[in-house]
């Protein structure tokens, strides 16, 4: 696992949580907002369609009222009874133009046309087959509705109507395939009302109507009423279209050239849903060059047959933009919340990690020996406060312990100094006495102060031997006291290990070597020289060679070897002797250590020589160890060459 700072870990955890929740909320928000807005757009277009239908119906109703009220007027009754067609035609034409109708035609009680306000030259044809006229004749009341009027009928009402109705069909890729290339019939809103005589008998039928083909009144009214002609970024927010069958005959959807896009047909999907199944249809559609929410519903004739489609489309962009704006605001809020959470995370992580960092520093100070160091116990976090208090208590205890330790150490040091001073003093005193005592004892023994007998000689041999041992002991104690008091100064000079140190040491013990008939093999390379304190190194060499001789077997071998190991020199002193055991190896370099071996019991020693040797070699940047061999022991040490 990667090792990180607590604060980093906390921050990473916090930010992961914040990022996950932030993105989750943002994504959720996006979908919720989008869904809501889209649904709203859907609802809007449905209600727009309802409004459009109302506008359409109102048109029909208006027409019905106009026709109905006109039919009640006396001049109509008079026209039927008096047959003054010319003046009546003028009257009717006045009504037609003032009400801006395309058709206003009067028939007799059999449905035979008497006067066409617009086209008076054509009359006499029977309109009883016309469903509206037919209904009026049989029901004797007014009817209104949408009807398909064939070309020949349009021609009768006015040639210009047939011309207005004629639409060349523009091929539309998604439309239901059809062989027709043009539409010559027209779709009209028509109303018919009975004309009653003065006795209340039916004397004729008045019918009027408006051709919807290329008539933009209704669609523009829808646009005006439903959409208040609002434009969104230069585009009409709403559009309306009337279809004759599946053909656009009246619309305010404009093509790229700005003209009204009539002559195209509805897609096959809409055709099937609306025209065949008679169901309303809502969908998103790309109209001309923008996305619209669109709604379609069937237009039925008076008999309930589907003859066309009423369409409204609402520009989607305002909704999309609204969704985007709401989302942006929402995102901004989420962002602010995230930043706030991040900021809080920073503060929180700092609140947790700062005291810990302090405590960490405190433990570092503590481990560096600054006992008694205290941390702030008011961190604002209960657990950390407890931890801080415990730490401070521990720190105080450590300080107390350190204090008492220091005191006892000082006491010990002073005791040790007293002991060492005593050792030094006694040794020094002994030495002064020993010098002349030894010289005198030897002179007496050797007969310089008069002849002695053999018994005296034997006794004096023992005296001198013991005095020599005493002298050696005193020397070692003096060295010990100096080493422990740190009085060993260090004076490096260039020394040849063989000539200046080990040859000298071997010479010192030459008497014993001869006595024990030992074989000495000195393989130390003569050219090896080191920068060292020669005096100290000679003491070490004397100790090691002295031990090798004293503890070696009679007629045994003592072998000295040297080895160059880079910046150090290694010396090995081997003797044939009783191998030293593992337990003894561990203590052999300790002060006053004496080995529990047969040899040590025979040979006197202070247990100081190897301790002093180890100290001296340590001062030369080296180490000493002992290796027991099959039939002997090797003392091996390295010292720095110092070059």
């Amino acid at each position, binding site marked *: 696992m990667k090792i990180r700072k607590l604060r980093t870990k906390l921050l990473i955890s916090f930010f992961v949580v914040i990022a996950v929740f932030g993105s989750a909320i943002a994504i959720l928000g996006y979908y919720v907002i989008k869904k809501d807005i889209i649904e709203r757009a859907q609802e809007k277009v449905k209600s727009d369609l309802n409004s459009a239908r109302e506008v359409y119906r109102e048109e029909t109703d208006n027409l019905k009222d106009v026709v109905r009220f006109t039919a009640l007027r006396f001049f109509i009754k008079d026209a039927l009874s008096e047959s003054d067609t010319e003046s009546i035609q003028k009257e009717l034409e006045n009504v037609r133009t003032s009400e801006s109708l395309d058709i206003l035609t009067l028939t007799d009680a059999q449905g035979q046309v008497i006067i066409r306000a617009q086209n008076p030259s054509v009359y006499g044809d029977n309109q009883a087959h016309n469903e509206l006229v037919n209904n009026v004749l049989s029901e004797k009341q007014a009817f209104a509705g949408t009807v398909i009027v064939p070309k020949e009928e349009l021609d009768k009402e006015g040639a210009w109507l047939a011309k207005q109705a004629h639409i060349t069909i523009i091929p539309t890729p998604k439309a239901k395939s059809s062989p027709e290339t043009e539409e010559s019939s027209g779709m009209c809103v028509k109303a018919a009302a009975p004309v009653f005589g003065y006795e209340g008998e039916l004397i004729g039928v008045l019918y009027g109507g408006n051709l919807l083909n290329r008539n933009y009144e209704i669609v523009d009214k829808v646009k005006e009423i439903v959409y208040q002609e609002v434009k969104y970024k230069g585009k009409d927010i709403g559009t309306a279209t009337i279809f004759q069958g599946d053909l656009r005959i009246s619309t305010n959807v404009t093509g790229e050239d700005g003209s009204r896009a009539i002559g195209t047909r509805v897609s096959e999907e809409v055709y099937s849903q609306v025209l065949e199944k008679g169901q309303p249809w809502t969908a998103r559609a790309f109209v001309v060059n923008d996305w619209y929410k669109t709604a379609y519903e069937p237009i039925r004739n008076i008999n309930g047959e589907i003859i066309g489609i009423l369409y409204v489309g609402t520009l989607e962009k305002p909704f999309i933009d609204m969704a985007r704006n709401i989302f942006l605001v929402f995102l901004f809020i989420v962002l602010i919340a995230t930043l706030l959470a991040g900021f809080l995370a920073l503060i929180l992580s700092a609140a947790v990690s700062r005291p810990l960092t302090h405590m960490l520093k405190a433990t570092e100070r503590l481990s560096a020996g600054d006992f008694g160091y205290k941390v702030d116990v008011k961190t604002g976090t209960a657990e950390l406060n407890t931890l801080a208090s415990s730490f401070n208590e521990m720190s105080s205890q450590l300080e107390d312990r350190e204090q008492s330790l220091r005191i006892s150490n000082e006491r010990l040091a002073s005791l040790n100094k007293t002991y060492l001073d005593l050792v030094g003093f006694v040794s020094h005193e002994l030495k002064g006495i020993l*010098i002349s005592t030894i*010289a005198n004892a*030897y002179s007496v023994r050797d007969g*310089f102060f008069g002849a002695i007998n053999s018994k005296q000689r034997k006794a004096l041999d023992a005296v*001198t031997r013991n005095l020599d041992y005493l002298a050696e002991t005193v020397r070692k104690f*003096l060295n010990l006291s100096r080493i422990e008091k740190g009085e060993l100064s260090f004076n490096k000079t260039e020394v040849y290990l063989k000539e200046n140190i080990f040859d000298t040491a071997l010479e010192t013990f030459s008497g014993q070597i001869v006595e024990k008939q030992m074989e000495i093999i000195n393989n130390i390379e003569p050219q090896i020289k080191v920068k060292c304190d*020669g*005096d100290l190194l000679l*003491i070490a060499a004397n100790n090691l060679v002295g031990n090798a001789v004293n503890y070696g077997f009679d007629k045994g071998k003592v072998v000295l070897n040297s080895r160059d190991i880079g910046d150090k020199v290694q010396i090995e002193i081997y003797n044939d002797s009783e191998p030293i055991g593992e337990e003894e190896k561990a203590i052999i370099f300790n002060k006053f250590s004496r080995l529990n071996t047969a040899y040590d019991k025979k040979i006197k020693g202070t247990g100081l020589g190897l301790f002093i040797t180890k100290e001296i070699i340590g001062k030369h940047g080296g180490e000493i160890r002992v290796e027991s061999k099959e039939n002997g022991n090797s003392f091996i040490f390295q010292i720095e060459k110092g070059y």
Partner: protein
Amino acid sequence: MAKKKIVWVEDDDEIISAFRPRIESQGWELVSASSAEEGKTLALEVKPDLIIMDIIMAGEHGYATIEELKSESSLANVPIIVFTSVTRRWSETTATRADGLLTEADEFVDKLEKPDVLLDTISKYLNR
């Protein structure tokens, strides 16, 4: 043949008296001085064949005396054996041979060595 003469500068009479019969038995003449100043005077007067010098003495110490003696043209070639329990650097120590070699002295003998060591060293110079 005239007896070889030794001047021994040593403030401890007991040491001189302990060694005197041993030295004289070798056929050498021993003249002793108990201070550095006396030693110098004696050496210039006697013109010895060898000088034995103690180091720690009341008054001038042995090392300074050795320097002075070696700078006397008449004594420059006279061998000097340092016989002491003191090294140059340590106030009190076991003396070492290497230490003595570092002075202008010719030899160095630790006072705690057996008497024969001093005798052997002297004869090295006088029995040539």
